[in-house]
């Protein structure tokens, strides 16, 4: 009971802090108006925004774990919408945030056998190649166009989160020819039931085709692409949910690596943004994992959708020159 109350308190505090942080950031930027736009420190000490960024990303880390989304998908719309940083640097930092999360989770997921290297290699090749082109497109387009597209994408992600179903172990009557040639199949033990599950995939060519779009969007917006990876791997290609989630998380370490290099080589990385964000989101994730063990917060999912919708609309308005 005590742990339950404690976890509820953490969730509630996280929500309040995130909302307060974003509203505060938004209010400061808009309130100070043109003066802020001209000297975006807004009269604050140099450490002000990095410290706010640290706290907001810490809360993001908690909520991302509880809501089952990657940090990158929360980071880019929220930070670009409510902080004074240019979208170019937000996308660069967003990619590094998503990359660091994937790198931290990758070894454990690979060793447990839940992430499948054989599934990730062909998919990763397509996604990472396309992420490079996505990054190039994103850096070449005018900022307002990218911001507009980002808003639409974030609202699309909300819709996907609202409507997409999940299948624990999808029915795959027969593996398709391509996945058989690539020997993409495996076995894992479902710890909750003790059942041994043999899995295989189908519709591989269509799945690979969709990863072209996923890669482009990941590179263009600096988002992690877990929100798109999992439905394609699970619902379309028929990989079990646990394999899909784990492989998707690991896959981000490949997709985001290629795009991160483009942003890094183009100078879109400011250490004063990257380091607090990485530390904040990783510490938040550790706390989130502990809270997750105690409570099953289905309402957090609704909260994440709400926050994303809010940030998506803000991005859309910024893109239109209204926000």
């Amino acid at each position, binding site marked *: 009971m005590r742990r339950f109350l404690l976890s509820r308190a953490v969730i509630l505090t996280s929500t309040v802090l995130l909302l307060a942080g974003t509203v505060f950031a938004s209010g400061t930027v808009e309130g100070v108006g043109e003066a802020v736009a001209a000297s975006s420190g807004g009269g604050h000490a140099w450490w002000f925004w990095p410290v706010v960024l640290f706290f907001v990303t810490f809360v993001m880390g908690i909520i991302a774990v509880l809501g089952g989304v990657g940090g990158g998908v929360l980071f880019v719309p929220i930070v670009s919408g409510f902080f004074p940083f240019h979208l170019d640097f937000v996308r660069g930092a967003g990619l590094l945030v998503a990359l660091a999360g994937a790198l931290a989770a990758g070894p454990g997921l*690979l060793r447990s056998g839940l992430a499948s*290297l054989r599934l990730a290699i062909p998919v990763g090749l397509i996604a990472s190649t396309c992420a490079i082109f996505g990054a*190039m497109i994103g850096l*070449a387009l005018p900022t307002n166009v990218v911001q507009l597209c980002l808003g639409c994408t974030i609202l699309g992600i909300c819709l996907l989160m609202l409507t997409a179903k999940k299948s624990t172990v999808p029915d795959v009557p027969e593996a398709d020819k391509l996945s058989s040639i690539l020997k993409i199949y495996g076995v894992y033990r479902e710890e909750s039931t003790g059942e041994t599950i*043999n899995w295989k995939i189908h519709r591989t060519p269509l799945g690979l085709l969709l990863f072209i779009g996923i890669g482009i969007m990941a590179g263009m917006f600096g988002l992690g692409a877990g929100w798109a990876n999992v439905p394609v791997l699970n619902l379309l290609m028929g990989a079990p949910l646990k394999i899909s989630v784990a492989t998707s998380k690991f896959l981000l370490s490949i997709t985001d690596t290629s795009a991160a290099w483009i942003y890094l080589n183009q100078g879109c990385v400011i250490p004063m943004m990257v380091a607090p964000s990485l530390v904040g989101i990783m510490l938040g994730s550790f706390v989130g994992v502990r809270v997750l063990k105690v409570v099953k917060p289905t309402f957090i999912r609704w909260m994440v959708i709400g926050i994303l919708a809010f940030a998506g609309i803000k991005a859309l308005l910024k893109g239109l020159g209204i926000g």
Partner: protein
Amino acid sequence: MYNSFQGDNFMNTDQNIGPTAEQVLYANILNKGMLIGLGLLLVTFAIYISGILPPYVPVEKLSDYWQLNVHDYLEQLGIPCGWGWLHLLGYGDYLDFIGIAVLAGVSIVCYISIIPAFLKAGDTIYVVLVVLEVIVLVAAATGLIAGGHH
């Protein structure tokens, strides 16, 4: 303990539960690289904010520049693109790029390390796929493929 995909001999049986040998190798290198990269990032960031090394962009001026698009940011501060940051390693802020580069580069090392395992297993398709991935990542890392500015 670990499986390996040996040509066509792979079968889905209980004996195959668990990661393949190349998967474990990849995981071990990824883990070390991630820890090294993250450690370097934290140490160099501490050096940066403690002022042990002077920053290239003074911290109190930084907020005047992070609102600019990357083209104007680089132009106004005279920052070089690509691997030009290597020449600025004497500055606290650019020292941080070492950790970032390690984090962004560890997957390339992982991929290269599993090529012998696939070669040994006679898994030609995966050798080709892994080599192609290495080429893609190295091309992105070296700046052979570069994006345009607004």
